[in-house]
């Protein structure tokens, strides 16, 4: 067709969105797993001991921690229960391995239902290749979901009056 150069971004929109990169849309601004996830959650590596990690987690005010490798790939999580274990335990033995992970573009309503249905207090949000984007807390997901519903009710009421 006479174009100077045509390139194909083979991995496409899914790759872009899963990397947590911004997009444009008429739904822009609606909360998603990625936009509500916290980016300050403590992380640790397999080589550490539970005792060391517990001290660090307490100092941050969190009650959970994500286990990652040197490339930020999520390997497991340590929740309240796991953090009460023997301080001499290795992280590898203490952690809950292979947690369910979620992509940044999942709408917050869907996340809220998932976290309640599966009784998950936290959920790692990752890129498509498993790298940590943030940690989503159930209470944050529920709050964002209910705030969104309240706004939509207010908008409907304003339009009806």
């Amino acid at each position, binding site marked *: 067709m006479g174009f*100077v150069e*045509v*390139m194909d971004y083979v991995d*496409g929109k899914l790759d872009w969105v899963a990397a947590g*990169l911004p997009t*444009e849309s008429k739904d*822009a601004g609606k909360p998603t797993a990625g936009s509500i996830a916290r980016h300050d959650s403590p992380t640790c590596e397999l080589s550490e001991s539970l005792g060391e990690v517990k001290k660090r987690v307490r100092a941050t005010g969190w009650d959970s921690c994500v286990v990652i490798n040197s490339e930020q790939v999520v390997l497991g999580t340590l929740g309240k229960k796991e953090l009460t274990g023997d301080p001499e335990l290795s992280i590898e033995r203490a952690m809950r391995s292979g947690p369910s992970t979620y992509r940044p573009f999942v709408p917050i309503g869907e996340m809220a239902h998932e976290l309640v249905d599966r009784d998950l207090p936290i959920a790692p949000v990752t890129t498509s290749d498993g790298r940590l984007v943030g940690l989503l807390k159930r209470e944050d997901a529920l709050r964002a979901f209910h705030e969104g519903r309240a706004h939509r009710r207010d908008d409907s009421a304003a339009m009806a009056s």
Partner: protein
Amino acid sequence: MPRFIERAEVQKLAGRTRLVEVLPAREFEKNHLPGAINLPLRQLETLARHTLDPARPVVVYCWDSA
């Protein structure tokens, strides 16, 4: 035959290329890469002639590699 590129190069080329999403309009409306325009695949050849500047490099993308 188009050259295959990855995400890092798409980001590096931002502003210097025309980004084109070839999915149907409904998919484009849900979300699209910043600055992209929509030329659905079925109409791509027809629309491209009238919409795109042949002197400007083009990056096309779909949903994924499937």
